[in-house]
């Protein structure tokens, strides 16, 4: 199906080992996979199977213990910390399970955060942050603190923040883990729309079948191995 040349994300026999000796944990134990530009991939698997570890490596927050990770053909382990920071800044957007918004900071300023590091001038930053908040249906809430927003709204602010930097990939680790099912489906429809209309590649970890059903491909991790990799007809 996907063109074999230049996948956006490619793992070649990636291992990630924590600790040594008795306490050694093989969080990823030889994973090879490739994700093409524009895909919407869901990752499932039991707790402790290495999903978050894989996400952190894809997101350039962590490095493999061995094996290769290529982002758009570039081996990431050869990059310095600062170069990986630049990759995060320009190509990647994170949506965390715990939202991870800055407290006592307005929704608008939270969304502006990646744009500050992109070095955009103030006016353009504000405009783009507003546009991103509007895209997730939060116009009129720009000046609210996270504490003044519901869980679903906070998660949408987090998505707007990931979106504002105009990323190639959005990495979402259990984006609906803290939400009721109604809000969960809203968020999923939003992600699906971003994938379809803006061509943003989305990699998402979830524990719920009906959430994973929004993706066009399902990866299942078991004990640090990629146990299943199946395309599926996305719902909605």
């Amino acid at each position, binding site marked *: 199906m996907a063109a074999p040349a230049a996948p956006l994300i490619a793992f070649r026999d990636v291992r990630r080992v924590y600790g040594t000796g008795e306490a050694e944990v093989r969080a990823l134990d030889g994973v090879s996979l490739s994700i093409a530009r524009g895909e919407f991939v869901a990752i499932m698997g039991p707790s402790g199977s290495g999903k978050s570890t894989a996400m*952190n490596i894809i*997101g350039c*927050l*962590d490095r493999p213990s061995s094996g290769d990770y290529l982002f758009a053909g570039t081996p990431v382990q050869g990059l310095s*910390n*600062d170069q990986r*920071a*630049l990759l*995060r*800044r*320009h190509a*990647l957007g*994170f949506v*965390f399970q715990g939202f*991870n*918004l*800055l407290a*006592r900071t307005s929704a608008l300023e939270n969304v502006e*955060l*990646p744009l*500050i*590091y*992109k*070095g955009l001038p103030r006016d353009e930053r504000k405009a783009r942050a507003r546009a991103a908040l509007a895209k997730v249906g939060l116009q009129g809430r720009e000046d609210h603190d996270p504490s003044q927003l519901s869980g679903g709204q906070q998660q949408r602010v987090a998505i707007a*923040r990931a979106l504002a*930097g105009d990323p190639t990939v959005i990495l979402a680790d259990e984006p609906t883990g803290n939400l009721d099912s109604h809000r969960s489906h809203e968020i999923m429809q939003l992600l699906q729309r971003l994938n379809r209309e803006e061509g943003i590649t989305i990699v998402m970890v979830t524990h719920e079948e009906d959430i994973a059903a929004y993706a066009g491909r399902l990866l299942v991790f078991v004990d640090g191995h990629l146990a299943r990799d199946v395309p599926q007809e996305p719902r909605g």
Partner: protein
Amino acid sequence: MLWETVRLAFTAIIRNKLRSFLTVLGVVIGVAAVIAMVTIGRGSSQSVTASVEALGANVLVVRPGQRMMGPPTGADAPRFDLKDAEALGELSSVAAVAPSVTSSQTVVAGNANAATQIVGTTAAYLTVQNWPLAMGRAFSDGEVQAGSAVCVLGQTVRATLFGSGDPIGQTLRIKGVSCEVIGVLAAKGAGSFGQDQDDVLLMPARTVQRRLEGDSDVNSISVALRQQATSEEGVRQVSEFLRERRRIGLGQRDNFSVTDMKEFANVLSGVNAVLTSLLSAVAAVSLLVGGIGIMNIMLVSVTERTREIGIRLAVGATSGQVLQQFLVEAVVLSVLGGALGIAAGLGLAWGGSVFMSIPFAPSAPVVALAFVFSAVVGVVFGYFPARSAARLDPIEALRHQ
């Protein structure tokens, strides 16, 4: 980007006003103490220098007894009288001599009165003290010889008794003696100890002796030396002369003292300088302690904001940018503290200088130095916390609760 970071630092500081203030309190106090010390020190040495310059030529003050060291022995030492003063005037190194017969009295004019220091002297007093008249005239030789009831007012006494009116030709009463005002001294301001030198009234020496004190004693004799005479020569000549005149045998101690006023003032300003630098050093140490306070709170702040740091790293901040953010925050904080301290220190010094009636003498270089120093405190003590923030692992930081 740097400007962005400074703005960010201000936001973080303003978000926690009270805590930010307490964080920099050490720096505020340190800077305020340094500024106040240095400014007051400069003011008081300026006032000493001014009084040294006001002395003009070298002036020696001769008093009976040994006052400078040990318990005063003046009580049983033979007094000086007007003849001693006249005799001193004949010495080769002496230009002019003025006796002082002092008496504290209440002076009455109409229904105003003033408690002041009466100085009985001669017209030479004005020369010796390098003190011009503002109006009127000094005593004539005839008035000095005769012990006439005439007086010359200091500015403070004039203001108390006559306000803005013309005092020349008016009559005062001092202890039942009527006395005509013939002149007014120019304003002299505060002395080396902050005393009001204008709170004085001059009369002929004989008048004070006869009418007010009832004896022929002279409290002190001011001796102005000739231009070409050094003060060492002057002191030696005056001392030798007085020992002979007072028949002090070989090996016996002087029963009088000769004080070189310029020397005295120099010693005073030396003491002043030592004291100022000592106190400034103490104040500088408190600035250091203030810096450690900043480091402490910044370290706590790094721990508290670990998740924030993780988020910033995740959205693309480099560790250098995180370092810069915390460093800028520490510097902005300590510079704000420095500015606050400078304002407080200048305020204190101003109050102090009014209180001690010395000039208010702020020093621009010292203020600039305090400012720079507080910024340096921010850099030095902010660096360690900032580095520990920059070294955080993004995943660990994000996981931090």
